[in-house]
């Protein structure tokens, strides 16, 4: 090859760098969430995790076979949700991002943050224009070049030495990168940040714990607001018409002893609706006022437009860690309906017309221990739910089991120490069960359930497709496809390792692929093709 000729020819189309047009993920693409790609953590801004793809469907799913496996080096318990853009898949583990060819799993580039603070998990990237965004165990937001993984900029979200880290996949809306923070269990106050997608400059911060004098501060006794928790360790949702972000807020601190923080402890255990442009809160709804069970309300808010009591309504569905399913009006946060989605729930007898739990006295952590159901791990957790507009059902991974909950006194220590004031022990002799449950959207009534037999822990979240399928990865290593209407298992594949991530689907070369992270690998499945002919 003649390099003298080659080099100028290579650049002929790009005389200046600034004129180079790179592969782009546009606002329009993110809004439309087209079926070929998987562009955000939950597939679309409404977080339904429902794909319009139906090449793999109830009739063809029997022919679903593994297409490729990509081993993530050193992985032990991946929670990454793959993001797929025009045939390139981005997957992560703490401090690391990998771009792989989504057709065959061949690696394109890898990025490693050095020095790497060991703190996990990491749940994935966000993509926008020519960049990939990623948050780190040392609480930084990093922008990488999508085609090479080179660092374009990095911004400190919070001080890692204070004890903060960032596990959630960021979300990009209209040029703003939304990035949250963990944990609440160290008494560190939470917030949600918006950063300029081009420069990394911080545009606004929503503090989830109000300071004295601000609305909501009256819900914190004394100085308890200073080490109060309320973090944002999962990704939220966005409604373009209302221009509102919906984000779940985590537990108050100390987790299990509420005596030092009398009051409702706003805005912990809430979903907050924030104006995208300013970060100002429009409304909030609190699922567990004055929580003492570490029931972070970060579970994904799912946005659905559907009839409710005869009128089309803008709804928000949410299955909370506290065991109740909630339906809200997402224009104003008004409670519309709610019901338990687990049978083993002993701490509340129901919900008031305003959606506030009716507590049963004494069912809370005590010095000598109390059985509380659900346990602190929750009836639901970070496993994403799904909603199918075709069945009108809300699908959630539900866990049945109780904890023996204790409290103690503990003093807050700065620097990232636990500030939990004890906790609960899962009742070992309890009959722990995990289910995929399909709930009626508007009533929360159980339509069907499929037990994850052999699992005593959650496993991964769900994916719904227009092929009439719910894909579900289990703690015990089974990856299955359920009939969205009946819950019947139509296909399964034993991956040989624990699954703690939710699946995605996309097309490449006109062929539908379903992909999921297992403990150590990314596995991709497609319909069988006989290449010998």
């Amino acid at each position, binding site marked *: *090859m003649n*390099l003298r000729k*080659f*080099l100028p*020819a*290579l*650049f002929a*189309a*790009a005389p200046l*760098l600034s004129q*180079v*047009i*790179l*592969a782009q993920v546009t606002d329009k693409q993110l809004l439309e969430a087209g079926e070929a790609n998987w562009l955000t953590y939950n597939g679309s801004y409404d977080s339904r995790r429902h794909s319009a793809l139906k090449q793999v469907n109830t009739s063809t799913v029997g022919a679903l076979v593994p297409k490729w496996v990509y081993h993530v080096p050193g992985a032990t318990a991946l929670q990454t949700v793959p993001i797929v853009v025009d*045939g*390139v898949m981005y997957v992560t583990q703490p401090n690391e991002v990998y771009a792989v*060819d*989504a*057709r*065959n799993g*061949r*690696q*394109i*580039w890898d990025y490693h943050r*050095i*020095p790497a603070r060991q703190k996990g998990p990491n749940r994935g990237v966000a993509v926008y224009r*020519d960049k990939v965004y990623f948050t780190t165990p040392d609480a930084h937001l990093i*922008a990488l*070049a999508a*085609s*090479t993984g*080179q*660092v*374009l*900029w990095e911004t400190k979200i919070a001080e890692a030495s204070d004890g903060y880290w960032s596990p959630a996949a960021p979300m990009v809306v209209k040029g703003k990168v939304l990035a949250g923070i963990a944990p609440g269990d160290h008494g560190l106050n939470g917030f949600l940040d918006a950063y300029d997608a081009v420069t990394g400059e911080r545009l606004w911060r929503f503090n989830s714990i109000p300071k004295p004098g601000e609305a909501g501060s009256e819900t914190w006794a004394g100085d308890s607001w200073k080490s109060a928790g309320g973090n944002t360790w999962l990704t939220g949702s966005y409604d373009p018409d209302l221009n509102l972000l919906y984000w779940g807020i985590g537990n108050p601190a100390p987790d299990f002893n509420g005596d030092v923080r009398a009051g409702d402890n706003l805005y912990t255990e809430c979903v907050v609706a924030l104006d995208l442009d300013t970060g100002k809160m429009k409304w909030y709804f609190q699922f567990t006022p004055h929580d003492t069970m570490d029931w972070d309300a970060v579970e994904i808010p799912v946005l659905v437009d559907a009839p409710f009591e005869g009128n089309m309504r803008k709804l928000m569905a949410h299955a909370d860690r506290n065991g109740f399913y909630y339906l809200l009006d997402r224009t104003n946060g008004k409670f519309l309906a709610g019901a338990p989605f687990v049978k083993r729930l002993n701490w509340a007898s129901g919900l008031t017309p305003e959606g506030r739990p009716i507590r049963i006295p004494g069912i809370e952590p005590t010095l000598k221990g109390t059985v509380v159901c659900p346990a602190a791990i929750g009836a639901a957790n970070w496993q994403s739910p799904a909603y199918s507009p075709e069945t009108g059902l809300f699908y959630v991974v539900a866990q049945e089991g109780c904890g023996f909950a204790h409290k103690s006194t503990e003093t807050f220590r700065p620097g990232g120490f636990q500030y939990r004031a004890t906790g609960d022990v899962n009742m070992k002799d309890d009959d722990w069960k995990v289910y995929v449950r399909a709930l009626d959207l508007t009533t929360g009534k159980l339509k069907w359930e499929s037990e994850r037999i052999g699992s005593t822990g959650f496993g991964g979240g769900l994916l719904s497709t227009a092929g009439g399928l719910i894909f579900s990865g289990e703690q015990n290593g089974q990856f299955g496809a359920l009939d969205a209407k009946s819950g019947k298992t139509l296909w399964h594949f034993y991956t040989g390792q624990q699954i703690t991530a939710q699946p995605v689907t996309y097309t490449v070369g006109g062929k539908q692929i379903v992909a999921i992270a297992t403990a150590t690998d990314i596995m991709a499945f497609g319909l069988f093709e006989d290449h010998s002919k």
Partner: protein
Amino acid sequence: MPMAKTAAVPLLLAFALIATAQDKPANPLGASPQVAEAGRLLYNKSCTACHGPDGTDGDRAPALDGNRRYFRVSEAAIFEVVKNGIPGTVMPSSGLSDNDVWRIVAFIRNVRATASDLVVPGDAQNGMAVFNGAGGCVRCHMIRGQGGLLGPDLSSIGAQLSLIRLKDALTKERPVPNGFRPVTAVTAKGEKLSGVAKNSDAFSLQLLDAQGKLHLLDMSELRSVEFSKKSLMPRSFDKTLTATQYRDLLAMLAVQARTKVRAPLQGENEIGR
């Protein structure tokens, strides 16, 4: 004799400490750039009958930097061979004074250091202007988020290469690193794609073109694929740039270290002006 036993232990420890200190004395002249530069001049005068100048390889003796492992790494071990030679080999004793040997030791340690550990003369700010302008480097290379995507990111290059290897990269033909091999592919439709192969196997090719666009190709869809063994990197910056531009470019690349960079020494920026 319990008393004698207990007394003997601290005594032995003391001997051990002295012995260790004698095994590895620190360079009494220190390791400042001035000492190393004096050592370089001495080295080029005294050692280049066999070794090459500035620590490169010579006709009869190997380079002192480079891609090999060395038996003698510590200052004491290097002092020993420069002072007394290596018995059974052609490496003779230098016959230099102890202080001159220590100067050479400082120089050899510098040769093996990464470029970012050294004080490399030149104006790094002007070097960045050369990187962005006359050198044309910015078209393919990125430093801290600014630049092209086709070549390796240089944000930490000073911490990755010794100064000699850095000079080699700008002036000598080097093997193409993985992920940067030039490739031209012609698709079945006759479309010609040129760039670098990020990855490839018998069935697929991941090609990055000069516009930063990835092309994910099946070998079965391609009419032809031609890999080049020769890097896209020009290798004659010592000739195509002025002496000042080349020096400043080197000085700028040498300080690129994404992790902790040493504090600048007093008067460092005046060196070489």
